[in-house]
């Protein structure tokens, strides 16, 4: 019996089955997603009502109600994720994508999750931040036997407290997370919660990083820190969807970090408060205004603010290397190096050679040079004024006066009111800029005199 028949047979069995305990054995058809675009929010068709989140470049898993239990089916499997158009990465994920679908439930829901393992090795799922029976916590060996390849296990517990959570393997997790196995879990409050405001826009994404050798497709799972693909939900700028809001909307952004380093997430034009962590809502008395919040490894942060300033605002990780695509971390700095008389000489040996980095790396944002196959450029993406010179953990937050409620489409470039864009000064021209060359040390006026160690004994 092949799998396809198995699942359609199972679906038929579900349709025919009553609410008996035997129905547990009947698997729900797993939903799968082929696109890496941001899916529209999934308004709950059954179960308790809630205000859905928008998963950035992701989607929410559909469920079926079975005798009052919300049943999901996650399939752990190898996937090819479009990290940026034309840049495909072999990952492990769930239901056709990495990260897997967001699971959205309501406080007090009883949840049953079928987990089918189509990976070449065993796996488990840990439900990060949940209160649940110890045997459902998903640490292979400690709480349960690992799910062997080809088998389906069932997790079942009650979503006891509202908040922002994640799921990820806790078996061979170094490999499995380096390959992209992760997903978001949102538990919405049942009714009105005193610490949880109602918002008009609720965005969620995970921070994840990969090390993909330029020209290859599979992440190097043994890389500890020197990653070169810095993603939000396995997407990189300019392929990350913009976050949009109507002016005056209360906006919530939920960020979880499953990389191996911290990320200071920074928004322009607004200040926010951290209103929740994976520990739950932050008491109002403990909140303070921020424009950057550091999301440490394994943490989640939920920030709320009013989108009151019109415009296209940058939203990014403040570690500048994390807003860069693949780059050679050992490439020497070329700034200020005089190439005169050498370019022709090098071109005689390497005909395609072009000078880069002599004035900095901005050349990379402007030049369209051929790269190795399947290589994400270091910095790319253009705005209405030119190259944005970013790639990685960067996108924009677009506030418009007329963005319709429930509309998440990109409204395009911001139309700046006249006189509100920085402009060139039209007075007397400044002196010709000095070339970017280093002066001899200690010659700047007022520079301290550094004493050199004696050089006796050295013959130069």
């Amino acid at each position, binding site marked *: 019996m092949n799998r396809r028949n198995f699942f359609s047979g199972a679906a038929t069995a579900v349709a025919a089955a009553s609410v008996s305990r035997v129905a547990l054995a009947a698997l729900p058809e797993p939903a799968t997603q082929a696109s890496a675009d941001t899916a529209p929010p999934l308004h709950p068709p059954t179960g308790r009502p809630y205000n859905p989140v928008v998963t950035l470049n992701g989607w929410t898993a559909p469920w079926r109600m079975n005798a009052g239990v919300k049943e999901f089916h996650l399939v752990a499997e190898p996937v090819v994720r479009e990290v940026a158009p034309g840049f495909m990465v072999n990952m492990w994920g769930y239901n056709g994508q990495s990260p897997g679908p967001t699971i959205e439930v309501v406080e007090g829901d009883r949840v049953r999750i079928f987990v089918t393992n189509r990976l070449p090795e065993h796996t488990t799922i840990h439900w990060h931040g949940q209160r649940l029976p110890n045997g459902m916590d998903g640490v292979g060996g400690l709480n349960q036997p690992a799910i062997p390849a080809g088998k389906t296990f069932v997790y079942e517990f009650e979503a006891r407290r509202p908040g922002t959570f994640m799921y990820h393997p806790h078996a061979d997790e170094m490999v499995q997370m380096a390959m992209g196995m992760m997903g978001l879990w949102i538990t919405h409050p049942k009714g009105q919660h005193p610490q949880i405001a109602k918002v008009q826009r609720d965005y969620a994404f995970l921070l994840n990083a990969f090390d993909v050798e330029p020209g290859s497709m599979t992440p190097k799972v043994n890389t500890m820190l020197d990653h070169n693909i810095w993603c939000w939900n396995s997407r990189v700028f300019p392929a990350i969807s913009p976050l949009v809001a109507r002016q005056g909307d209360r906006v919530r952004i939920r960020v979880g970090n499953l990389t191996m380093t911290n990320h200071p997430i920074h928004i322009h034009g607004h200040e926010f408060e951290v209103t929740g962590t994976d520990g739950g809502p932050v008491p109002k008395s403990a909140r303070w205004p921020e424009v950057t919040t550091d999301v440490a490894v394994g943490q989640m942060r939920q920030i709320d603010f009013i989108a009151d300033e019109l415009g296209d605002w940058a939203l990014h990780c403040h570690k500048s290397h994390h807003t860069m695509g693949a780059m*050679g971390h050992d490439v020497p700095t070329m700034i*200020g190096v005089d190439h005169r008389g050498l370019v022709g000489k090098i071109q005689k*040996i390497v005909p*395609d*050679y072009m000078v880069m980095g002599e004035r900095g790396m901005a050349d990379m944002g402007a030049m369209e040079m*051929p790269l190795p196959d399947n290589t994400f450029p270091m910095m790319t993406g253009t705005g209405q004024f030119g190259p944005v010179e970013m790639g990685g953990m960067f996108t924009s937050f677009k506030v418009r006066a007329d963005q319709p409620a429930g509309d998440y489409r990109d409204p395009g470039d911001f139309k700046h009111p006249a006189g509100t864009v920085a402009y060139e000064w039209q007075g007397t021209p400044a002196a010709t800029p000095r070339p970017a060359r280093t002066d001899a040390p200690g010659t700047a006026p007022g520079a301290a005199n550094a004493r050199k160690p004696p050089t006796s004994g050295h013959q130069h």
Partner: protein
Amino acid sequence: MSALQNLAVLCGAALLAGCASVSPDGLRGDVAALTAGRTSVVPQAALPATDPAARAQAQQSIESWLAQPLTQDAAVRIALLNNPGLQARLAALGVSDAERVQAITLPNPHLSLGRFTNSHEREIERTLAFSLLDLLTMPWRAARENERLQIATLQAAQDVVQLAADTRRAWLRAVAAEQLAAAHERMADAADAGTELARRMVRVGNWSRLQLAREQAVLQEARSQLARARLAANTEREQLNRRLGVWGLHAQYRLATPLPPLPASPLPADGIEATALRERLDVQAARRQLDTQATRQGWSRAGAVFDDIGLAYSRNTSTDRDGGHRDTTRGWELELPLPLFDWGGAARTRAQAEVEQAAAQLQDTAVRARSEVRSAWLTYRTALDLARQQKSEVVPLRQFIADETTLRYNGMLASVWDMLAEARNSTQAVANAIEAQRDFWLAETDLQLALTGTSPGALQGLPPGAATTTKSQGH
């Protein structure tokens, strides 16, 4: 006088049987015929002529060949016309020819006159003596001298064939060395650019002296390799000059480049041993040697027993001094050695041993020819595979690596020094391909020599590969 007439008739018969005159062209025609199709790339090359008009014309041809970029074909033609060593060798063949003619010309008869007086008589003796053995063995000796000369001709032809092969080898080495020097120049240029850029990196504070020193070390290595390559190009060219027999202005020719392309399909191995046994000049010479010894064996039988047979005719006159009465006696005198002590056994044994020696030498030559041709074919085939691999696999791979490194440079994933190092590596691969191509043509020369010419001497085999790649610290 009828006896003298008889002698003259005998002598005339002997002359007809074996006497010959000196070859007017010093046997060069024979050598040319033997070397046809055996002088490497040139199907039929002219040899130095004895006649001054032909020599002048040859000189003109040499001038015109040297005025063009020198092909291997022209190099072989020039060497065969102009190499002084070969000219000496061919002159020596003329000497051998003269010696042959001398050896089979009948010795002059001896005339002895005597005048004796006593108190009453005066006696005059006239004897015309002739070595009969020389005459009797004339056909054998003539045949033997002819055989010897043919062997000498075959040996001279082998020298011609060797010179042609040596010249071709020298041309291949000189051309390859010139191309290799050009490749090393490119590699040194790449290292030079890297070092200059490194120096400027240090000047603005981006690099340490240590990092510069590493690039300088790469440059020094590249420069020393370039110096060696240039010396090699010069040395190989001088080797070619020696084969061509040129100096001064004549030595300022340009070499035609590049090396000839690799053949589409290799020579088949079928029948190569049979070809070698049939075609090789050294095998033919050994066979002749055996024939000569066998012939000589017959002659030695007669010659050994009757060391010399003397035939003399004498006419003696004695005159009575008082009476004037003259008495004349005429007569034949035959002089025969008595085989009392030397019954010719030693000479026969020697002849027998010489035949055995010649037979063994023929066998040895044949065994060597078979082995050499097998070995030469295997070297040829392996050299072709290696040259093809280098040309169609390694060079494109290195080029791909260099191109991909350039793409990585474009993405700021690799440094300009990585790119220059890969440019050096791909140039090194091209240099290795030139060497492999040269080695193939050298092996082909050896194979042709082993197949149709003579022993290629100590078969070179293939030199060990010297593929090296360099790395840059510049990242």
